[in-house]
């Protein structure tokens, strides 16, 4: 699942994906506008000290090919391949930019995005629209930069002067050579699309499914239900054996005339259309989308020209695994008929192993824990692992949130102290905590809520106490009071965390992270967290006459947030 980024958001790439081979796609378009999308490889001073790392249409890759321009594909206007672990030491920041070519300004841009795809899955997406810009002619969309680890930041910063201003910003000495080259609408070098290495085609997997997939409906119909309409056009009910010449044979009759596949387990009649067996190709049922029922693109190449290979384990003699396909020569309208004399195998349920092997281990492979040598590692959306051995300091976690641990870990009660309990009782901002100490890994989760690690680097965040799952003990926290009129009880309270460390926030459902704008409001029951630099104002809509009668909107206390750009609030789809 892609993580949505807003302008100013940052994240460690290792938190997004374990891979280092990234696909960065940019979509940006506007009527009558053309764009040059390029990637600047900058050094630690954010200077373009080596212009071989200015990757654009005239220079589609960096010297060691760690940054490659791939061209437009899969809905992206431009795309790059970035191999993080091959980027040389001198390059500490990759800035992805879009510059206008010709007339126009950035406010004319339609909705676009910058996304990162890794391992066939989109892991991050920063969406923007032209409304965020004004007269700029260039925009820095996002950065992949190195600070302790590779990180991604959604930037969205515009430049009035276009490409020249950008180049100047990154160290002007390139200007003389490169700037003239930019404005001419030179087509991309022919190699651009071809740069996509074959092994690296995630976008086609995510955005545009391979050809067989979109066409499942016809195939089962042809194979499985064998409706009369499908059979009749060719030849009605042909005598068995006479079918080979014409393409569309009732499935039940295909195996006999397929001498290329003596092994019934080969079931090539179904798989073959991709790469017909060398023998009498005419016997193969030709519906082109026939592989669709098996919809497993990764496996298909393996079948090419290897009929004897058992495709899905032991397929019985009946060659129509797609569930219902059990029609003999006589197609029965309801479609649940069975081959006479072949009842047991009639449903053709594949009993063999699924893709990726059989057995408990293989079936659970996708749920394996993800190893990374970090203190906080998100295992999946709802499970967090903390390695106490890294960093060495204890972790405070909500009582009862441990689901599993390995190693020598001690769990002890963490009291709030006398004053803390008084405050906690009075404000409702009370946390039942336990201290996890020792050496080992602890897995934390609670009630299948979504977990979000937030790394604080000296900054502060306000979180409602009931949404805190765990945090590093190095963080300081205190109860903060939000004053306002019209709130039952006089004020709202929240927990403010400050310092350097990680806090894990839990939400019911996928939250929305909103940037703080002059008009950002949130329900005080649904807001989970906000960056502490944002100022909170209570805007209550108390109208005596409305509240006194039925028909109240039920939305009485709202919080309004104000702050500089870069602040955000987190709201969950669940009102406590």
């Amino acid at each position: 699942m892609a993580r949505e980024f807003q302008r100013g958001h940052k994240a460690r790439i290792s938190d997004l994906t374990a891979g280092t081979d990234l696909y960065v796609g940019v979509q940006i378009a506007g009527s009558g506008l053309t764009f040059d999308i390029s990637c600047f490889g900058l050094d630690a001073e954010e200077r373009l000290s080596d212009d071989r790392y200015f990757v654009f249409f005239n220079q589609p890759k960096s010297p060691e090919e760690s940054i490659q321009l791939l061209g437009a594909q899969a809905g992206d206007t431009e795309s790059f391949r970035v191999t993080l672990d091959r980027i040389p030491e001198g390059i500490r920041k990759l800035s992805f930019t879009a510059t206008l070519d010709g007339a126009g300004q950035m406010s004319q841009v339609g909705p676009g995005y910058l996304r990162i795809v890794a391992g066939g899955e989109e892991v991050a997406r920063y969406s923007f629209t032209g409304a965020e810009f004004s007269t700029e002619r260039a925009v820095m969309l996002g950065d992949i930069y190195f600070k302790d680890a590779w990180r991604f930041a959604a930037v969205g910063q515009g430049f009035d002067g276009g490409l020249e201003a950008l180049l100047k910003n990154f160290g002007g000495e390139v200007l003389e050579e490169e700037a003239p080259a930019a404005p001419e609408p030179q087509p991309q070098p022919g190699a651009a699309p071809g740069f996509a290495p074959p092994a690296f085609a995630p976008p086609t997997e995510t955005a545009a499914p391979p050809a067989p997939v979109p066409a499942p409906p016809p195939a089962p119909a042809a194979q499985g239900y064998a409706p009369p309409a499908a059979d009749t056009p060719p030849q009605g009910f042909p005598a068995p054996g006479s079918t080979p010449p014409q393409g569309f044979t009732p499935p039940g009759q295909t195996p006999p005339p397929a001498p290329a596949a003596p092994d019934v387990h080969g079931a090539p009649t179904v798989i073959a259309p991709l790469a017909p067996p060398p023998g009498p190709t005419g016997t193969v049922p030709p519906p082109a989308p026939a592989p669709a029922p098996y919809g497993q693109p990764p496996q298909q190449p393996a079948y090419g020209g290897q009929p004897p290979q058992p495709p899905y384990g032991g397929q019985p003699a009946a060659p129509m695994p797609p569930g219902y396909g059990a029609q003999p020569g006589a197609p029965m309208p309801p479609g649940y008929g069975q081959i006479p004399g072949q009842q047991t195998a009639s449903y053709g349920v594949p009993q063999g192993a699924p893709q990726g092997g059989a057995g408990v281990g293989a079936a659970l492979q996708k749920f394996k824990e993800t190893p990374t040598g970090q203190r906080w590692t998100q295992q999946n959306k709802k499970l967090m692992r903390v390695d106490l051995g890294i960093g060495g300091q204890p972790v405070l976690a909500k009582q009862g949130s441990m689901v599993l641990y390995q190693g020598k870990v001690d769990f002890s009660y963490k009291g709030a102290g006398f004053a803390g309990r008084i405050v906690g009782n009075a404000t409702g901002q009370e946390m039942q905590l336990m201290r996890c100490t020792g050496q080992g890994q602890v897995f934390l989760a609670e009630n299948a809520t979504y977990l979000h690690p937030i790394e604080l680097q000296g900054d502060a965040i306000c979180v409602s106490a009931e949404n805190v799952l765990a945090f590093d003990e190095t963080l300081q926290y205190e109860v903060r009071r939000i004053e306002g009129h019209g709130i039952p009880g006089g004020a709202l309270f929240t927990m403010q965390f400050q310092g350097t460390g990680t806090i894990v926030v839990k939400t019911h459902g996928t939250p929305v992270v909103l940037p703080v704008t002059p008009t950002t409001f949130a329900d005080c029951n649904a807001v989970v967290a906000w960056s502490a630099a944002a100022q909170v104002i209570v805007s209550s809509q108390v109208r005596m006459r409305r509240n006194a009668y039925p028909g109240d909107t039920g939305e009485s206390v709202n919080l309004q947030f104000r702050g500089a750009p870069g602040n955000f609030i987190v709201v969950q789809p669940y009102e406590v």
Partner: protein
Amino acid sequence: MNQPLAGFAPAPVTARMENHGHHMLKVAMQTGNDLFARVGSMVAYEGFVQYEPNPPAVRQIARDWITGEGAPLMKCSGDGLLYLADYGANVVVINLNGDGISVNATNLLAFDAHLSWGVERVKGLAKFAGQGLWNTRISGQGWVALTSRGTPIVVDCGGGEDETYVDPDALVAWSPNLKVKGKRSFKAQSLIGRGSGEAYQMAFSGEGIVVVQPSEDSTDRLRVRG
């Protein structure tokens, strides 16, 4: 009208059991290849599928189920497609292929009837009176579907000297060859109301895997019998 819904049409069958989305199980039923499923888990079916609540074979063991594993089963037979779900829990499909797995009854959704299975008491646990963890152990050649509240995580016990400790409420399944024992982590101070909230864990050691869900079910796994 139903264009937006078209994406949810079932994919063609490729295996006996498959996920439809994360939370639904699709079973291709076939005569002679029956299925045990949790009672009430059927959400839809196509074809001719019959349901026998509490069939004789199960009744024999029903007593065992009552002793702690409270999930009654039904036997499904026939031809067609059967869709099962359990209140939106994630479904995990496993092709056993000769392996065995030990599952909490509350996390068991369906399994092939020809698998060998039985309810067993977890050894090494429950030394105190009246309580015990009962589990369903399944092995053989066939398919099993488990449920998990949230995406599960699979942890390799690795056979190292360090044991893996699991909250019994979050435990879904484990390899039957693992050694299990109970561990109480509370101390004297817990008795005066200052516990860490983690009073009791199960310790696993040996070669194998443990499947854990990111939620602590409210249903009590260590239930009182009798």
